[in-house]
């Protein structure tokens, strides 16, 4: 091999430098807004500008004293866990039935449901959903929000879980049946334990979906006592005349950390499959 000609070496370096500059710029674009999230909560007197903080944990103390902040995190948990309970129970039963029973047109049904859930989004259906909740008296209740979110998430969950159930050999259940196990026992002793990774995966997915959802609780819940963190966060910076930055910054971090943590944990374990329907 002969040494490369000088001109091509120069070009090589120029393109190398350009590449590094572009990567740094892109990283900066994504990092810049996020920086505030990690500096301001620990600053004794946070401003909107990103600065090296004068370290303190006092902001988190003021967060603990705010009556709405903690309660809203609790509300987010209630909505999340409630939706998980509804979606995972119904979704698992439906997926199990769809996976094990031969129903004509089963695949068509599944695709139709999936199509429907991507067409009838919370945004496009906010008016009828709002009106429906008013009519049945579930407006301003967390039950209403849980049900509305469950309806939207179920098709995807059924789809994911059916895929998962299909991969469980039937011989497990048949074996239990031979020893005289009743359907309930088969479900409890065999199907649920074996499907547990799938159920855990779906639960986490649902939690992440509900945790950050703004629109549905925003239109369906009016009183601050029942609103989740996503809505309270918005209220904090729009409705209080002078925004309390120590509160907002600490609240943002406490509100974001759980999903970020769950997310990176699950992402490592399940990879890209997890992103399929997230943030839809």
């Amino acid at each position, binding site marked *: 091999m002969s040494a490369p000609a000088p001109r091509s070496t120069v070009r090589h370096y120029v393109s190398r430098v350009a590449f590094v500059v572009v*990567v740094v710029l*892109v*990283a900066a*674009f*994504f990092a810049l*807004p*996020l920086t*505030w*999230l990690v500096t*301001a909560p620990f600053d004794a007197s946070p401003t*909107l*500008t990103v600065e090296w903080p004068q370290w303190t944990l006092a902001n988190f103390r003021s967060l603990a004293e705010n009556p709405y902040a903690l309660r809203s995190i609790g509300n987010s948990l209630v909505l999340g866990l409630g939706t998980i309970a*509804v979606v995972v129970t*119904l979704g698992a*039963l*439906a997926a199990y*039935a769809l996976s094990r029973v031969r129903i004509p047109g089963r695949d068509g049904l599944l695709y139709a*449901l999936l199509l*429907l*859930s*991507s*067409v*009838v*989004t*919370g*945004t*496009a*259906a*906010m*008016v*009828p*959903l*709002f*009106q*429906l909740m008013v009519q049945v008296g579930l407006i301003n209740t967390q039950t209403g929000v849980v*049900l509305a979110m*469950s*309806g*939207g998430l*179920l*098709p995807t969950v*059924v789809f994911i879980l059916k895929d998962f159930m299909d991969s469980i050999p039937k011989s497990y259940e048949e074996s239990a049946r031979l020893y005289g196990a009743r359907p309930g026992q088969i479900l409890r002793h065999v199907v649920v334990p074996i499907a547990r990774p799938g159920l855990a995966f779906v639960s986490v997915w649902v939690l992440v979906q509900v*945790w*950050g959802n*703004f629109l549905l609780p925003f*239109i369906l819940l009016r009183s601050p006592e029942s609103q989740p*963190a*996503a809505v309270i*966060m918005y209220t904090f*910076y729009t409705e209080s005349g002078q925004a309390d930055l120590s509160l907002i910054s600490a609240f*943002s971090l406490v*509100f*974001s950390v759980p*999903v970020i943590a769950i*997310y*990176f944990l699950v992402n490592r374990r399940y990879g*890209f499959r997890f*992103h399929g329907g997230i*943030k*839809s």
Partner: protein
Amino acid sequence: MAPALALIGLFLIFPALWTVYLGMTDYRLTGLAAADPTVVGLENYTSILGDPGFWRSLRLTLVFVLASGVLGQTLLGFSIAWALRRLSGPVKSVVETLVLAAWVVPSSVGAFLWLALLDRRAGTLNALLGTEGTAWLIEHPMAGIVVFNIWVGTAFSMLLFSSALNGVPPSQMESARMAGATAWQQLRDVVLPNIRAHILTNTLLITLWTFNTFTPYLLTAGGPNDESAILPVYIYRTAIPGGQLGMGAAISLIMLLINLVIALASMRVGRERRRRS
């Protein structure tokens, strides 16, 4: 299984059908028409189609979807995936983590982070650029929500394309390199044909999601003067604070139909890809 179908029926199928009915009434949130709505037929539709506000909103939505979704997220996502393809170690994981974090942060937090960044008086951007006093979101509201949405959503395209690029057979790339193809020629002749289906799927999904996102409302609330009132925001403002449920439903129906077209297209692409593999 029946309860699941019932819930899906109640909260997906019913709203879709109910939209059709509501869209033909003069339903209001308060007042006389709230207690006793009357069917007004296609009147809502004629008034929407005659409303310049609706057309402007539709045009803004188109710009928003094209600029932030189709162009911004797809191109940036692909470029990042391409650039990181052969990198490994800390640089790759730092960039990936940053892009993903922007995606995972709850939308109301993400929106506030941008409000802080772009603030007129104390915003970090003005401090960095030395443009003290520039109210970015008032002077350039559309550009603001477009950039914001690119920041939020690029992660999906990046992940999809990096998995697609992993699926390109290395032997094909190596054959092209041995034939003396430049990086650009490799991209054009080997990579793009291999990931064509992924590009299509990605574009359709991104279009659907960007079309349905309500998050820009958190940044500009549609303002100033409806300059960033994309369709979801327009529906919300008409129906809920505006109280005109019937009118809002009529616009929703138009939105549902557009969704249906995009979703059907993406399912067809998916089915064709499965048939070929």
